[in-house]
């Protein structure tokens, strides 16, 4: 119950190139875990493993265990579409469906998976999702506007609402703020802190100040290896590994 995802000896390769090496860590339920590290350390590859986003990448393979809901999502027969409903993803570039309205952007997942029939049910979920994404007040009178007409920060919160609409257990976020200005970044960060009480969130970031601000736990990756994972306060006041210390104090990387 404590852990939402348990990862054991996860390794991954793009062709001959090994990008993740024997990663073992647990992701605590209903908390925010940041994955931090310099470019090329494998952090994005890592979170994309968690909902099988690499399935269609030629030459990609992974080994080890990623236990979610009691099943190893690497080897067991799992429908990636169903998996991604439970393990949602928000990307670096906000990617709302440009021509769809705000409303339809949030409702699209519900319509695809056919879990809701009536317009009223859908409208209720859309409102709830937009509220959770802290954007309802801004958009409630503009639900028919196209997704592409919003600002970058609004688009990103719309994407978070879209991910929340299908009731995921885990939300993966790959550099969710790096395309946004500081004000939008602050809004997304506050949203992540708030959602962290109800969802398991894994955020990839190369911005360690952001990792410090928003997360309960931090995992530090370096060249495909998990160097250290601990509570944020521990990592940023007294890390156990010298390499973590050097990275967070700006002595390398």
């Amino acid at each position, binding site marked *: 119950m404590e852990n939402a995802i348990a990862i054991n000896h996860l390794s991954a390769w793009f062709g001959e190139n090994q990008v993740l090496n024997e990663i073992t860590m647990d992701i605590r339920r209903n908390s925010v875990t940041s994955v931090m590290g310099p470019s090329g350390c494998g952090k994005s590859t890592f979170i994309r493993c968690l909902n099988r986003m690499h399935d269609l990448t030629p030459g990609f393979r992974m080994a080890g265990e990623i236990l979610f809901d009691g099943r190893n999502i690497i080897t067991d027969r799992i429908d990636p579409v169903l998996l991604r409903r439970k393990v949602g993803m928000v990307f670096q570039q906000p990617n709302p469906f440009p021509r769809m309205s705000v409303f339809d952007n949030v409702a699209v997942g519900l319509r695809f998976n056919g879990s809701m029939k009536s317009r009223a049910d859908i409208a209720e979920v859309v409102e709830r999702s937009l509220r959770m994404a802290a954007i309802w007040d801004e958009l409630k009178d503009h639900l028919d506007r196209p997704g592409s007409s919003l600002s970058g920060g609004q688009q990103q919160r719309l994407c978070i609402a879209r991910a929340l609409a299908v009731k995921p257990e885990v939300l993966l976020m790959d550099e969710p703020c790096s395309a946004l200005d500081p004000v939008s970044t602050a809004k997304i*960060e*506050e949203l992540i*802190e708030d959602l962290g009480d109800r969802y398991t969130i894994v955020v990839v970031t190369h911005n360690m100040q952001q990792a*410090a*601000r928003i997360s309960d736990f931090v995992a530090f990756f370096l060249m495909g290896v998990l160097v250290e994972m601990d509570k944020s*306060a521990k990592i*940023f*006041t007294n890390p156990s590994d010298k390499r973590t210390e050097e990275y967070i104090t700006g002595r390398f990387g």
Partner: protein
Amino acid sequence: MTKRYSKELTNLKEMVLRMGGLAETMTHRAVQALVDRKREILAEVVEMEQQVDRLHIDIDEIALGMIALRQPTATDLRFITAAMKINTDLERIGDQAINIVEKAEELLAVPMVKPLIDIPRMAGIAEEMLKAALDAFVQGDVESAYRTIEKDDAVDQLKDQVFRELLTFMMADASTIARSMDLILVSRHLERIADHATNICEDVIFMVKGKDVRHQ
């Protein structure tokens, strides 16, 4: 600023205040036990010190975590560092109150050298200073902090007065030396408490104005 960060700042302030209230009560009760000759009060003060020690550690841990995780700047940075420094002063005040308790234990076992007049006055001013310092911290009241610092001279003068008076007792009757020395030390502890209250006021001024008024 996120809601959580702002809650953390409020929480830190409340912890400092709780600790300040304890330090104030400890000082008051320790002197009261001595003046009213009520030994049973002493245990109460010792019990409060454990709470103060707990808060001493917790406040530093929380403040350190906030510096590491929130990267505070400007007002927030000065507030958090002030909280850490005030934390140290309050813990020292708690220690001084315990020192008074220890002297009181000895003094309550023997007859008084003389009725206590200046020591309760010193305690009154020191407590007032501490209370005003904490109010200034909460309200960011620089004027009040400056006024409070000025009261420190009165406490220093009373300490000298206590010393001169007890000196005459000791010269007249050597059997009063031990008891008189204990009382002189109590006045010394109270004077130190007023000094810590002064430090707190100086930290408040730095917190609000960014101006360092120490050693002036």
